């Protein structure tokens, strides 16, 4: 299937114009270099077209090749419990090269002034683990075969080739 099998729902992390008719979903992995590359492109897209666009990030951690990817996803979701998902999302990509340092996720939580006890409790919370698993499973059944993979209004995006222009064209073709 090349359609999004798991519709956007209440558990999803969303930003941009939440009432926009266009929804861009990214399946990504915080430890993937191609996702780190795409991150500023998506940020620019949201800056320039955020009023027309709702953006959803779903986790697709490839744990066997990226040992810290799942932990990074839990970290983002745990920050989300304190209203700072997107700040943590940005920090994670910015600090991808430091994931092997044991204390990095804790350091980032401190940097965002999170309640650290709460953060530590949330990082291993079953609901968060299940959310990340559900994102991944939804991706698998939607034919996500690499990261990042984008869906625009539930259609898989084939045009994206690592450039901002290709991302922009995807949106413009739809409008």
């Amino acid at each position: 299937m090349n359609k999004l099998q798991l519709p956007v729902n209440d558990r999803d992390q969303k930003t941009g114009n939440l009432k926009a008719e266009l929804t861009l979903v990214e399946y990504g992995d915080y430890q993937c270099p191609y996702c780190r590359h795409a991150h500023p492109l998506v940020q620019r897209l949201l800056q320039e077209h955020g009023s027309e666009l709702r953006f959803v990030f779903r986790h697709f951690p490839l744990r066997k090749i990226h040992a810290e990817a799942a932990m990074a996803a839990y970290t983002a979701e745990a920050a989300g419990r304190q209203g700072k998902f997107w700040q943590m999302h940005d920090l994670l990509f910015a600090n991808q090269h430091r994931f092997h340092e044991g204390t990095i996720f804790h350091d980032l939580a401190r940097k965002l002034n999170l309640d650290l006890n709460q953060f530590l409790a949330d990082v291993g919370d079953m609901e968060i683990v299940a959310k990340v698993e559900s994102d991944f499973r939804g991706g698998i059944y939607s034919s996500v075969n690499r990261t990042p993979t984008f869906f625009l209004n539930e259609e898989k995006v084939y045009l994206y080739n690592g450039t901002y222009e290709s991302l922009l064209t995807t949106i413009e073709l739809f409008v």
Partner: protein
Amino acid sequence: MLAPNFELNATPDQKLRLSELRGKRVVLAFYPADWSPVCGDQLDLFNETLKYFSSYNAQVIGISVDSTWSHMAFAKDRNLHFPLLSDFEPKGAVSRLFWCYNAVKGCSERALFIIDEQGIIRWSEIYPEGINPGVDGVLEALEAINAKTNTKNHEQITTAGQ
């Protein structure tokens, strides 16, 4: 159709024979070559979803014409947790048995087979070389086989009850 039996090296000194896996479903994944540069290559996806496959009683096996030494290094690099068989000598012989050897390029095509508990090929698909088909197609096929088996069992029970 009964799957042709074969025996190939899984490591330099260990062979795996298809018939040893009777009683399990086998997902045979033929692929062109070890060492793909992309994050999330097809084999990585299988590797990440092995528990989905085991819930269907299915063992995933990769096959390419690379040598066992290449397979070992590749499996270590990608942290793969399923066997890679080496269709190395005579080159591509097993791929030919399954009609998925590309003699022009000298490698296997990207092809998937589901072999059931009795050794019968229940599903197969061949993909263009450059396309990573993901694993949803093969998971859906396993689900369909389950549904069929359940219906059959149900019919048998119903008939037996009459």
